[in-house]
């Protein structure tokens, strides 16, 4: 259980995490006891889809999955008219360091379902999917059970709560691929293909799943929708800062004493999240660098801890809020190790569709390995930085950028350490332990 604090020192009430650890909240009865599905009843009984969209616009609720796009605007982009429209909840939470959606789905699955039904009503969608990553087996089981309960009570299905609104909802389990968290990769994967991203435009709001207009939102965003309706858009917008409204679930992990999910008001100083809530790094250590929004966000250093934690302040500081995952790295860790770990992850997860990302991630790993085993020169750092520049913006999706931005920022901000690392590794190991073959010769079955 976590809280937020406001400027006058009073604690703001948590919105999403209010009583989250309550026994039985994951059941329909437990959720109803807390006023669950009242927002849905109000929406279906007294509001038109346009009024719901207006509330969402008034709340200025921004997407919590990474891009921070306003959900109200996204919904309003959906074309009007009679056609098959789709709503997808992106529960493929695979950004390293992020585990907030897991917590929400596990402990309050009905909050997500209610938000999805309201969002589908606003968008005019009659089919909804939850694309949950395959690794979250327990959470998918909980969602399935919640869905069965909701269907039995007439909350999902035909003529929901005696209105004219129909919705079928499917919990779709993925099978382990980071790229399927990217919205167009997710679409392909949900269509039963390899999860390769698509060229945009057309954007999913025009041509998404099965070529139909599709609204895709993150778990946390959709779970916030009932609260926006309950509080009223204007009231919700009073929480947080002017351009980053509301509260945010922040997953704090890495070298901190109390890793976990915390709900904070957007605009809370980052220092308070890292030191106050998560306890800061272990005794005697200091924050060397931190990722403010998952491993794809450019890193910030210990000097940047006083930046307010909201979308715009972090963007101004050259990073991003992303999925709201703070990964703290303390001064006992070599920055090269962090960079190598990251680069290997993105190399493995690159789907291979676009050359800059497929080759760029591979070469970045190779160069970082050279740095690590003493074969590199400081010139390699420049080459590495140039590779990052050539990835950014040149691919269909941002997976390559997601590696290029943090690696580029690490090289820029910790160049001295990279150079010292190269020097130390070379002194330690003057010949290198793995010289590349000078002349690649084609041989049969060399690896066998």
């Amino acid at each position, binding site marked *: 259980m*976590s809280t937020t604090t406001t400027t006058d020192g009073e604690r703001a009430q948590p919105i999403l995490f209010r009583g989250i650890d309550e026994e039985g909240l994951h059941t329909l009865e437990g959720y109803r006891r807390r006023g669950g599905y009242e927002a849905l009843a109000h929406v279906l009984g007294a509001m038109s889809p346009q009024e719901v969209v207006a509330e969402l616009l008034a709340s200025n609720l921004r997407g919590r999955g990474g891009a921070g796009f306003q959900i109200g605007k996204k919904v309003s982009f959906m074309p009007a008219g009679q056609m098959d429209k789709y709503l997808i909840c992106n529960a493929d939470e695979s950004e390293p360091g992020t585990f907030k959606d897991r917590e929400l789905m596990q402990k309050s699955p009905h909050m997500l379902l209610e938000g999805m039904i309201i969002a589908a009503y606003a968008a005019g969608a009659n089919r909804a999917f939850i694309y949950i990553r395959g690794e979250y087996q327990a959470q998918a089981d909980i969602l399935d059970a919640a869905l069965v309960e909701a269907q039995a009570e007439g909350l999902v299905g035909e003529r929901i709560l005696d209105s004219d609104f129909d919705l079928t909802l499917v919990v779709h389990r993925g*099978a382990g691929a980071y790229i399927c968290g990217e919205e167009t990769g997710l679409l392909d994967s949900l269509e039963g293909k390899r999860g390769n991203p698509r060229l945009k435009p057309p954007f999913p709001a025009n041509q998404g799943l099965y070529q139909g207009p599709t609204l895709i939102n993150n778990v946390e965003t959709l779970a916030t929708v009932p609260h926006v309706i309950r509080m009223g858009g204007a009231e919700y917008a009073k929480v947080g800062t002017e351009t980053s409204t509301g509260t945010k679930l922040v997953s704090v992990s890495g070298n901190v004493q109390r890793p976990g999910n915390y709900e904070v008001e957007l605009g809370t100083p980052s220092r308070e999240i890292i030191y106050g809530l998560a*306890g800061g790094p272990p005794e005697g250590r200091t924050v060397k660098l931190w990722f403010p929004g998952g491993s794809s966000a450019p890193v910030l250093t210990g000097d940047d801890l006083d930046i*307010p934690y909201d979308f715009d302040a972090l963007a101004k500081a050259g990073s991003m809020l992303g999925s709201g995952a703070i990964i703290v790295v303390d001064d006992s*860790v070599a920055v090269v190790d962090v960079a190598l770990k990251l680069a290997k*992850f993105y190399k493995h997860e690159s789907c291979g569709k676009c050359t800059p990302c497929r080759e760029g991630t591979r070469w970045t790993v190779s160069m970082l390995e050279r740095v690590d085993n003493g074969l590199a020169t400081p010139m390699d750092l420049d080459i590495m930085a140039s590779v990052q520049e050539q990835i950014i913006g040149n691919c269909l999706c941002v997976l390559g950028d997601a590696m290029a931005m943090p690696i580029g920022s690490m090289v820029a901000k910790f160049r001295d350490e990279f150079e010292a690392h190269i020097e130390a590794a070379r002194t330690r190991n003057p010949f290198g332990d793995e010289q590349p073959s000078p002349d690649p*010769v084609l041989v049969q079955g060399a690896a066998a």
Partner: protein
Amino acid sequence: MKRKKAGTRAADQAGTNGRGKKARGTAFDGHEGVSPIPPVPRFGHGSRVPGWDDAADLRKDPAVVPDAATTPVPADLRAEIEAHMAKYPDHRSASIPALAAAQRHHGWCSPEAIEQVACVMHLTPGYLFSVATFYDMLETHPVGRHSIFVCTNISCSLCGADDLLAAVLEAADGDPDLNIRSFECLGACDIAPMASVDGVYVGPVALDEVGTLVAQIKAGEPPLPAKQLGHRAVAEPLAAIPKGPTTYGGQMPEEAPGPPAPVEQQSPIPLQDEGQGEEGAT
């Protein structure tokens, strides 16, 4: 030099799970009726020449949708796949759940399993194989019955995941029944270092618990019951949270753990005052 490289690469594969890159050249070896296919040609430094892990037998025609008359499909598997297909407007959407079902049935996405899914879904085996090779959780090579996925991504590795993986590999001692591999962020960094044991998240796993963990898995018992994710509250209780205004420091209770260095701030950072928030930050 080359021999050493091959060794390190094999170790890498045991650790970093290249998609379908484990046990190169062994695909389909366990399948009856397939002639041994020569190994893939490689450059001296090890990279693949044609771009595929396993050589395709170009003498054969591409496989078509299997004939239902000659492809027996277990009734329960067929029922499960058809139930998945019925959920979607386009039945192809069920390819991942169907392959997962076949994998549960057969242990891995064997050629036989893929044939059966292809038969029920009216798709070619090639299409399904392309899907199966894309996703980490679909196994295109035979694996042990119990999966132990150790998360070695950044948060977990900061908390010692690489040591954990090494300890698990050592404790397992090459047991073919255990499918141990490093896995990308499993979304449980709050219990780092952690592992997913047959889908059950456990953590933080201390190195001296690894022996118990592996023994429990081998005995078919629930892994480290006290450390399973389901038992964890969202975060630490309120007592840990500093009271008072947002500036960290000054007005904290004496006994609260503080940052190593005092925070020298003149005024609290305004949160909602327009414009000033950002100025105060920089």
